């Protein structure tokens, strides 16, 4: 139902001032799948996402969407294909849910064009999909954190893009709201074929919800692929500098990472790190 899009970073180098954050990075986002980018703090995962949505111009290389550099595409044209939900978007004081979601229609409207039926349809669909129809006339300030995040996703949905980038969509949410948001994104992916790319903090959430897991370290892709292949004890050691065990999550069948600290270990840490069976 959505056209096939190819989003990729080619030889991408990103820098703030003199300090290079990402160096010569290649990354292909699989179409119609959910991709999660993980990595240690300040490894450049948000920077990468910002550059993929043209917020940050590359120092070298390029981000390519369907064969064209995103930094050369007309702004509105790009915004009809690729949507972004930043980490902490700003809601103006007193704005209502319907108004905020309606602002997602901007790339589909000309400078003086009037509001059309298809705009209303898009807003209504976005509200339904995120189960926020009931909240439409409420002020965004009054909503709970989980509701607010769903409203922001609704705004990105009203934009009707085939590719959706999200920067840590679950930060500041408690665990049930995290699951709610990630389930919602999975629904979008399954029913609409939306390509989802998100930066996630929580490795286990990433492994559970992503089809494609990208681990960044030192400004490069350390490992990329199916979570079963990427989330290994070696990768976690290399990327986070942390000893851990990886077991199979009995609820999802995906890999589950269990960190090894210096305390509260049932067996000596060395033994666990060496891979001896738990219990």
């Amino acid at each position, binding site marked *: 139902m959505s056209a096939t899009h190819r989003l990729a970073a080619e030889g991408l180098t990103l820098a703030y001032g003199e300090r290079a954050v990402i160096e010569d990075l290649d990354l292909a986002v699989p179409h119609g799948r959910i991709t999660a980018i993980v990595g240690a703090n300040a490894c450049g995962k948000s920077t990468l996402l910002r550059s993929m949505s043209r917020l940050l111009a590359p120092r070298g290389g390029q981000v390519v969407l369907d064969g064209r550099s995103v930094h050369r595409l007309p702004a509105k044209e790009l915004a009809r294909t690729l949507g*972004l939900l*930043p980490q902490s978007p700003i809601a103006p004081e007193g704005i209502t849910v319907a108004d905020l979601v309606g602002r997602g229609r*901007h790339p589909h409207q000309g400078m003086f064009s009037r509001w059309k039926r298809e705009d*209303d349809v898009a807003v*209504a669909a976005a509200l339904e999909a995120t189960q926020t129809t009931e909240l439409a006339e409420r002020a965004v300030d009054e909503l709970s954190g989980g509701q607010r995040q769903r409203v922001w996703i609704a705004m990105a949905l009203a934009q009707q893009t085939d590719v959706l980038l999200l920067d840590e969509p679950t930060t500041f949410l408690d665990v049930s709201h995290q699951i709610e948001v990630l389930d*919602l994104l999975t629904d979008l992916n399954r029913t609409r074929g939306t390509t989802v790319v998100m930066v996630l903090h929580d490795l286990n959430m990433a492994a559970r919800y992503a089809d494609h897991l990208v681990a960044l370290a030192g400004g490069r892709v350390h490992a990329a692929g199916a979570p079963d292949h990427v989330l290994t004890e070696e990768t976690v050691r290399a990327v986070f500098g942390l000893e851990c065990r990886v077991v199979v999550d009995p609820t999802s069948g995906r890999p589950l990472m269990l960190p090894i600290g210096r305390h509260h270990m049932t067996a000596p840490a060395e033994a666990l790190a060496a891979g001896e069976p738990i219990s």
Partner: protein
Amino acid sequence: MTAVVTPPPSSVDAVARYRVRRAARRRLVITVLAVLVVVVFAASLMIGRTFYPPGDVIRVVLGQEVPGATFTVGRLRLPRAVLAVVAGLSFGLAGVTFQTMLRNALASPDVIGITSGAGAAAVFAIVFLGWSGTAVSVTAILAALGVALVMYGLAFTDGVVGTRLILIGIGIAAMGRSVTSYVLSEAGAWDFAEALRWLTGSLNGSTWEATVPALVALVVLAPVLLALTRQLSALQLGDDTASALGIRVDRTRVLAIVAAVGLLAFATAACGPIAFVSFLAGPIAARIVGPNGSLLVPAALVGALLVLVADLVGQFALGSRFPVGVVTGVLGAPYLIYLIVRTNRAGGSL
């Protein structure tokens, strides 16, 4: 939960109905404000030391000769009232543009020093360089753009728009005011009333020569800002979100700043920096309109209404004649304090 690809017609209708309701409410508010502006404008042509009935006023405006009224209304009251409307619209529109763009009610051009920069340059050009008319306006606009540029450089390069920008603006405003005071203290031949024009703004002695440049600037620049309405609304969501919605953030911001600063500078060159109009218009308009869309037009109308009413009050309601800026200052500063108190209580951003 299953995501819905095609929403039921009922919910589409609900969305459409809500949108239409909000648009209607906005239109109603704008209409009422516009009518009020016209009524007060007409009243300010009729009221004065001598009262002229509407018939006389209309005949004067149409260019007919009416003994007495032709001079009083045509030469004194009409340019004054027109300048009040033009300056009010300009200050209101420019103020709400800054407030929307910087997402902060305190970031209005009179709080952050742009108006006082324009005023200082205008009075400098008049007193020291002996200039008048368009040259003064151009000096004012250059100075205001300079101040805006300095602010941009000082505050935006840090990647922080909010509090730092406002505090820096407070510093710049203090410098602008002290330059104005210095220039005025040098201009010994001036009387106090004339000096007040450049300190707080005044419509006394308005002439067509002063009014026309401001009017032309309004006609040229207001459409530029109105065409940016949607972009400015998107900028309210933060630079990243706006950019993701396909807005060219930097270009929009530069265009909006240049247009708003132009409006401010021409109005300031004509009647001085009328205190707090650009700060007040936006929040008042927000109160009246509610969360029903862009504030640009309502805020412009509120600005015009403020200046017209304050000028009438300053001329006739109090024992002696006060320049309009003293009235708006006395009204506006407490509102600023109220806004700070309210915001501090709520703990949110302005």
